[in-house]
């Protein structure tokens, strides 16, 4: 039985005026039907990792890996036409701000229906019915009404639910969520995550949650990868987070202000250049 996703020695490079810049430098991990969190600060390469798996990085960026396998089958070297059948149908992605990832000139309902028809041979009325079902599944009340709204007419939380509906309607095996809740209020964030949790569990999907919020990821996911400078610093089970060994992970945990802490000076993360060489 192969893993749902295998990534080995993934590298993402960009040519710049001063030489080649490696944003992701040889990371490897595997995933089954579990929730994996990838945590890192800006510039750590976490977003590029997600996009590299879906081969969404355009030239002049270059993606290299020993392998990227979905269910044991290669998806790194297959031609673009075959990859299009993978995107959406087998691996889906939710991004940060629904205002930017939804088409502003199409109604919300028609976008979801379109996503459905791209990956199935459904007719328009069938797709519409499925869309309404899906809107209910993501706990949007009055789906009939919301179907005809435009993206700018819905709130952030609802927009993300719509994104989730759109991305899960083709029933993919793996969902990559890139900072899906960073633009939302904290209570709405948790409600959206609860929804993602339910859907992932019900459908037996794998989930990669990319975020900068270590505590959130640790409380939600099963396993956590901590990235820095394009490399994985540490992999741990979420419940073991507070026993993290790597100084970077410890540094990140220690520098957060805590509700049960004091007004004292916050510990500042000391970046060890050796981490970049590791």
């Amino acid at each position, binding site marked *: 039985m192969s893993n749902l996703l295998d990534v080995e020695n993934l590298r993402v490079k960009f040519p710049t005026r001063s030489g080649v810049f490696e944003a992701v430098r040889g990371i490897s991990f595997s995933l089954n039907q579990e929730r994996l969190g990838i945590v890192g600060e800006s510039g750590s390469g976490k977003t590029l990792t997600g996009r590299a798996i879906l081969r969404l990085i355009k030239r002049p960026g270059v993606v290299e890996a020993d392998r990227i396998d979905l269910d044991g089958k290669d998806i790194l070297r297959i031609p673009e036409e075959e990859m299009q059948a993978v995107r959406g149908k087998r691996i889906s992605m939710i991004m940060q701000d629904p205002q930017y990832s939804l088409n502003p000139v199409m109604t919300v309902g028609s976008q979801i229906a379109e996503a459905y028809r791209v990956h199935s041979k459904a007719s328009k009325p069938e797709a519409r019915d499925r869309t309404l079902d899906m809107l209910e599944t993501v706990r949007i009340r009055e789906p009939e009404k919301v179907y005809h709204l435009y993206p700018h007419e819905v709130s952030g939380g609802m927009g993300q639910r719509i994104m989730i509906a759109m991305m899960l309607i083709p029933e993919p095996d793996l969902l990559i969520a890139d900072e899906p809740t960073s633009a939302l209020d904290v209570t709405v964030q948790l409600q959206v995550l609860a929804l993602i949790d339910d859907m992932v569990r019900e459908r037996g999907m794998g989930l990669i949650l990319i975020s900068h919020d270590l505590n959130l990821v640790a409380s939600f996911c099963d396993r956590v990868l901590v990235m820095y400078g394009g490399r994985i610093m540490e992999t741990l089970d979420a419940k073991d987070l507070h026993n993290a060994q790597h100084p970077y992970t410890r540094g990140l945990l220690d520098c957060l202000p805590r509700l049960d802490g004091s007004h004292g000076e*916050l510990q500042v993360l000391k970046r060890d250049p050796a981490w970049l060489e590791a």
Partner: protein
Amino acid sequence: MIRVENLNVTFGDGENSVQAVRNASFTVAEGESFGLVGESGSGKSTVLKAIAGLHSHWTGSIEVDGMALKQKRPRAFRKLLQMVFQDPFGSLHPRHTVDATLKEPLAIHRFDNPEQRILKALDDVGLGPEFRFRYPHQLSGGQRQRLAIARALILEPRVVLLDEPTSALDVSVQAEILNLLVRLRKEQGLTYVMVSHNLAVVAHLCERIAVMNRGVFIEEMTDEQLRSSTPSHGYTRQLLVASKGYDRKAIDRFVEFT
């Protein structure tokens, strides 16, 4: 130091007007650090902008250092109260170097010794002289925010308004900036009013905290009370629970507060 009474702020006119802040009243003593917490749409940033004079459609009374403020601000006000904005990139002019950004307020108010003041301002926020002639796009997020703080402090204000100063920064950088803000306040005896949606950050930096929801002040408490989870209002309690991380059972109990 600051006294706000019955502040009402509206956006838009006539039929399209939205009341962003309703009957807000609070005081901030000199040297105190006051926090304003709320989710988006709560009106917290609007209160700050009204105090700063950046928004003119308000009614009620705003007094800073005994001076009652009208819609237009007097010159002296600029040296009394300054603001640090949320987006470190958006609050700096992309075509002005660090030096130009710091020189400008000095030129406007005709301060003497601009050279020394600029060097001191950079030193105070931990930016070395090698940053002096860089452009904002050559600075990291944390460095830009330091510059924004230096710019706010170069006119020697007594009150600094902070609009989510660390929300756009990485967690490790946030710690540095928060430490910097605490140190500067101690060194210069500043009064802070800080707006944030992050309870932990506010509890760390502030002594008294007010919670807003949909334009209305829900309750006020000290940071001790917040930490020991003894807020009385359901909305604040819910916010506290949400700040602690993902807890499925708690989430299922979330309610909408209007």
